[in-house]
Structure formats: C-alpha cells, structure tokens
C-alpha cells in the first residue's frame, strides 16, 4: 500500500503535479515520434537548432505583451519557420552545408533571444523561458500543449506514408510526382509547433531532450519505424513520470529531472537494447565464435 502511496501520492495530493504530468505526457506523445524522424533524416541537431530559433520570437512576444502565452507562441512559430527557411536557402544557394548554416542561425537566434528577454525581463523570466515552468502550468498552457500535440499526431498520421518515402527514397517519391519539399515543410511546421508548445513545459533548452532522447533510445528496442515511434512516445511517457517523481522527492528542478530520466533510459537502452544493444552484440559475437570453433574441431 505504501508503495502505491509513494508512486501516486504526489499526483493525487497536488494539483500542480497532476498538471505537470498531463503537460509533459502530451509533449512526450508528440515529441517522441517527431524525434524518430529527425534521427532517421540525420537531422538530430536540427531539433536543437529549431528550439533555439524560436527564442527571439518568444522574446519579442514577451517584450510586447509580457508573459502572454499567445504572443510568445505566435512569435516563436514565426521566427522558428523563418530560421528554417533561411538556413535552408543558405544551404541551397551557397556551398555551405545545411548543418553548418543551421548552427550559425541558431546561435545568432540564441544570442538575440537572450538579449531581448533581458532587455525587459528579470533573470527569473529568462530562467522561465530557457528552462520552462512545468510545475506552474496554467489552463491556457495545458490547453496549448494538448492541442499542439493532438494536431501534430493527427498531421503526422496524415503525412506518414509520404514522409517515410521522403526520408528513405526521396528520388522515388519525386519520380512518382509527389512534392517531397512540401512534405519536408509540413514536417518542419509540426516540429516548430511542438517545440513552441513544449517550451512552456520544459523550456527552450530542455524541450529538445524529450524529443531526441526517447527517439534515440527507441532505436535500440524496435526494428521498424512505426514501432520506433510508439516506443519513443512510451519512453517519453515513462521519463516524464519518473522525472517528476524524482523531482518531487529529491526536491530538484523538474525539467532537468525529466530529461535526465530520459537520459538514463537511453544509457540503459544502449547496453540492454534488443536491437543492436551492446550486450546483444556481445552475445552474438560469442555465439559466432562458438560456432566457428565447433566447425574447426570437426576438421
């Protein structure tokens, strides 16, 4: 009984813990599957870049309307998409590779964003924007995260088939007359939407963690892209719960605790994972050696 109490108590006793759990679960559902595609497209750093790219927009929203959710969200969406398009253009028009141009743009965005927030806000405001307010989610923020992740999951379901094709065989998709770049833009839009919603919960610096870590861990547990997406959402869910619990009992900030539990699952997956985990690889190597030695005894 005390076990149940220990595991569920914080959430039954405190409304802010329930809100935190609901918010981070919504985020994990949408972020994990998106992260799987970021990894498959070899754009792992892109999530990071986009998360920083939304910062100046959020800051402008904050400067003009204070801590208004709508203003910060719209601002973040705008700068996120502008940076995505600009960085893509630079990569297309100059010899600079896409990862480098994204890195350049997001570093500028980060600098600009932090500068803008400090123009008017206190250090506390900056901390809120960078690290989120998962333990202080109000109705509006919860609603935003829930709607954003619902829209993301539905849209992802709609574009899944062309998106998979676009990632694995873009030439084939183009030869079939489908617009691969439109799919790419739709994917970027969903990415920015999720990141903007997520920054309310985990902050712009931490939100990428709930996107990439579960996705990176899922790769060790599932073979196909569909299963990886489900696994990533599940791992994100578990990390959110354990992270919040840890933060409650150890009295540490919640969003790094969530990211760190996702990190623990990632490290465990590297070792124990059923698809390319280290232990599995060692077992296979041993079995191979035994087979070989049996064959050589034979002769």
């Amino acid at each position, binding site marked *: 009984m005390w076990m149940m109490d220990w595991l569920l108590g914080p959430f039954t006793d405190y409304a802010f813990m329930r809100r935190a759990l609901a918010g981070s679960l919504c985020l994990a559902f949408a972020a994990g599957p998106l992260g799987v595609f970021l990894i*498959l497209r070899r754009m792992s750093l892109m999530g990071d870049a986009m998360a920083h790219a939304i910062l100046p927009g959020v800051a402008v929203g904050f400067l003009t309307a204070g801590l208004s959710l709508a203003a910060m969200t719209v601002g973040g969406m705008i700068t996120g998409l502008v940076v995505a398009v600009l960085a893509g253009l630079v990569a297309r028009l100059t010899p600079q590779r896409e990862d480098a141009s994204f890195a350049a743009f997001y570093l500028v965005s980060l600098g600009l964003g932090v500068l803008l927030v400090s123009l008017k806000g206190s250090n506390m405001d900056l901390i809120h924007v960078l690290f989120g307010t998962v333990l202080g989610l109000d109705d509006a923020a919860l609603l935003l995260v829930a709607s954003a992740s619902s829209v993301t999951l539905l849209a992802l379901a*709609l*574009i899944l*088939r*062309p998106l*998979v*094709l676009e*990632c*694995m*065989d*873009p*030439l*084939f998709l*183009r*030869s*079939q*007359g*489908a617009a691969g770049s439109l799919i790419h833009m739709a994917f970027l839009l969903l990415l920015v939407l999720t990141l903007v919603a997520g920054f309310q919960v985990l902050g712009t610096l931490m939100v990428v963690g709930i996107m990439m870590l579960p996705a990176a861990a899922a790769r060790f547990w*599932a*073979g*196909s*892209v569909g299963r*990886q997406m489900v696994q990533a959402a599940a791992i994100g869910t578990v990390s959110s719960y354990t992270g919040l619990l840890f933060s409650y009992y150890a009295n540490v900030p919640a969003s790094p605790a969530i990211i760190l539990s996702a990190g623990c699952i990632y490290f465990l997956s590297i070792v124990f994972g059923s698809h390319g985990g280290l232990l599995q690889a060692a077992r296979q190597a041993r079995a191979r050696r035994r087979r070989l030695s049996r064959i050589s005894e034979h002769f």
Partner: protein
Amino acid sequence: MSGAVIELDQVSLGWRDRVAVRDVSGSFARGSLTAVVGPNGAGKSTLVKGIMGMVSPLRGYIRLAGDSRTQMVCLPQMGELDRSFPVSTYDLVAMGTWKRTGAWKGLNAAEHERIQGALDLVGLADFGPRIIGTLSGGQLQRALFARLLLHDAQTLLLDEPFAAVDRATTEDLMALLQRWHEEGRTVIAVLHDLDMVRRYFPQTLLMAGQAVAWGPTEEVLTAENLHLARHLCAGDYL
C-alpha cells in the same frame, strides 16, 4: 515499330558549371529494349534523370508520347536509397503501389496479393518481414525489382540495375527484363557489361558526353565506336 515513346531533340543536360550530356538526338521506340552504355562520366545517369524530368534540359527538347509521363518508372542507382531506414521488405515493395494508393488509401486484398506475388517472382517469398538493412545487395535489388513490378508501368528506365549484384541474381533479374520486353513494354537500362548487352539487348545507345552511336547493338558496339567513346571521355580530363 509503332512510334516513339521518348524522343530526344538536340538535348543538352547538366548543372550550372558542367554539361554532362551534349546534343543528343534520337528516339526510343515503343516496346524496344535498349541498353545505354559508355565510360564513367559519359552522362548516362544524367540522361536517365533528364528523361524522368528530374533535370530539365539546358537546350533541346525531350518529348514523351501521350500518357508516357504517368506510365514511366525509374530504378535509380542503389546509392540513392537509404538502406539503413527501418522498414520491412514488404513495405518497400508496397511503395510500388503509390500511383494507385497515394498517401492515404489502404491496401486492399488484391494489392496484398500482388505484393506477395511480386516477392515470390523475384525469389524473396519469405523475406517480407525482414528489415531492408538486413538484406544483401543482391536481395535488395531483387526487392527493388519487385517494387517495379507493382508499378505496372509501360516504360521502365533502369540505372545500372546489375551493379554490385552476383551472377545468379543478374540472370534472374535479366529474365524479368526480357519478360517485360516480351509483354511489349519499353525498357531502357544503363549497363556496363558489354557481353550481356550483345546477348540480350537488340538496341544500344553508346554515350560519351554525346551520343557516339545509337541503333542496333551489333552496329553500335564496334571496336572503333568503343575506342572513340573512351577517347572522348578521357579527353574531358586532359
């Protein structure tokens, strides 16, 4: 001969700083089986991309007969597919139904039957659930041929379909090419193995930046034409 499916009129293709194909004129007849041969860098792949409409001509025109744009399918070089992408062989083959199913429609029983039928035909009957990353090069190429089968296209362009594929696989896949030819489809394949071209392909286009020769295989693959092609391509580097 019942007319040209693809007609090239003084076509030049290339990118900003490099012209890969110069002034090619000629046509692929409906139902013909043509090999495109030539040294590396001769512009063979570029020509295929031009015909597929993925590179627009710098000069000249590429004319496609009637409905052939929608009735055409291309097998690009293997390097352009992400082999580490986690999908099953069955799903890879199922992508061949795109023209009929598009982004949203489900696969009905008939399509499932055709997919399994295509897998059987290329000798991958039991490979459906295997993730493509676990297939060998030859097996993957068989799967890509199965995907081509599902298109049911009237014109097929294949860019080095037998590169990095063992002998048995090459023979099986060549049999498929011949079958398509017998069914009256137009088949164009970029190849390196001249013996194979002589044995199986009635028509040949010899490329070396330009069209060195185009016509019946025995008239095209003469010693002096091949020598000229090598010479033309080597000249680019001098």
